[in-house]
């Protein structure tokens, strides 16, 4: 389900609006993922804390959202733009790609919560498509 020019424009516009709150978004999304889908905690057993809003969660949320920001920049060629990240996830982190869907859902929930006026049907559709494509690019190098 490829991104139309309209989808890309919508994602970029939405991202520009919400990126000042990037840290909060990352923290909320990751916290929810770990809490609502406890199986995702298995990837972070080395952290000192997995509670919503704790320091390791906040720090990692920031990293994840920075990755999404990068993807927005590279929206015209996600596969090339996310090559390094894909290799990281494929060969080192080895996160089961099913989890990308889970995190994407949590991100959408957080966006809806924090930006109800900006999260129009068009924004929801474009973001859902974009995150799905991002996940595809991220899992490109897996096998």
């Amino acid at each position, binding site marked *: 389900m490829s991104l139309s020019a309209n989808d890309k424009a919508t994602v970029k516009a939405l991202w520009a609006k919400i990126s000042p709150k990037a840290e909060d978004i990352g923290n909320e999304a990751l*916290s*929810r993922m770990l*809490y*609502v889908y406890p199986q995702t905690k298995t990837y972070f057993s080395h952290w000192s804390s997995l509670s*919503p809003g704790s320091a390791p969660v906040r720090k990692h949320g920031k990293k994840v959202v920075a990755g999404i920001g990068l993807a927005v920049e590279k929206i015209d060629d996600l596969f090339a733009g996310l090559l390094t990240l894909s290799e990281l996830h494929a060969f080192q982190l080895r996160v089961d790609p099913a989890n990308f869907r889970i995190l994407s*859902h949590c991100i*959408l*929930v*957080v966006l*809806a*919560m*924090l930006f*109800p*006026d900006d*999260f*129009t*049907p*068009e924004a*929801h*559709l474009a973001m*859902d498509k974009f995150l799905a494509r991002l996940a595809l690019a991220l899992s490109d190098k897996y096998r």
Partner: protein
Amino acid sequence: MVVWTDQERACIQDIFSKLNYEVAGPKALHLYGYGFCILFVYPWTQRYFASFGNLYNAEAIMSNPKVAAHGVVVLHGLDRAMKNMDDIKNTYAELSVLHSEKLHVDPDNFRLLADCLTIVIAANMGTSFTADVQAAWQKFLAVVVSALRRQYH
């Protein structure tokens, strides 16, 4: 058997008390309604609603009276699950047969609807849709979806 904590029950009941069954009017345009979401974000779901008329864009979907009416039907169904939380499986036995034998709905659509409902409720509840509330709500929907899938064979 599904075990519900008191906190989970309270969360679910609280959400239902806030659900506005008559989602209509200009506010619906951007607090966009429960049923509209799935038809717009996952347009292939429209395959089950050929008789509903114009579903070509967001405005058409949101002002379509058949969609609104059907949204209410679905919400009432969920309400029944909420009122029978300790036996959703049996409460939904007939509904499951209906969806499988008569409506021929691909059960993957239940997952899509659950996701959409969660997002729309998050938009409506804002920051009071905490991680606990989300967890309880998604657990409830998972039980509902499982019950709906049960009679498919």
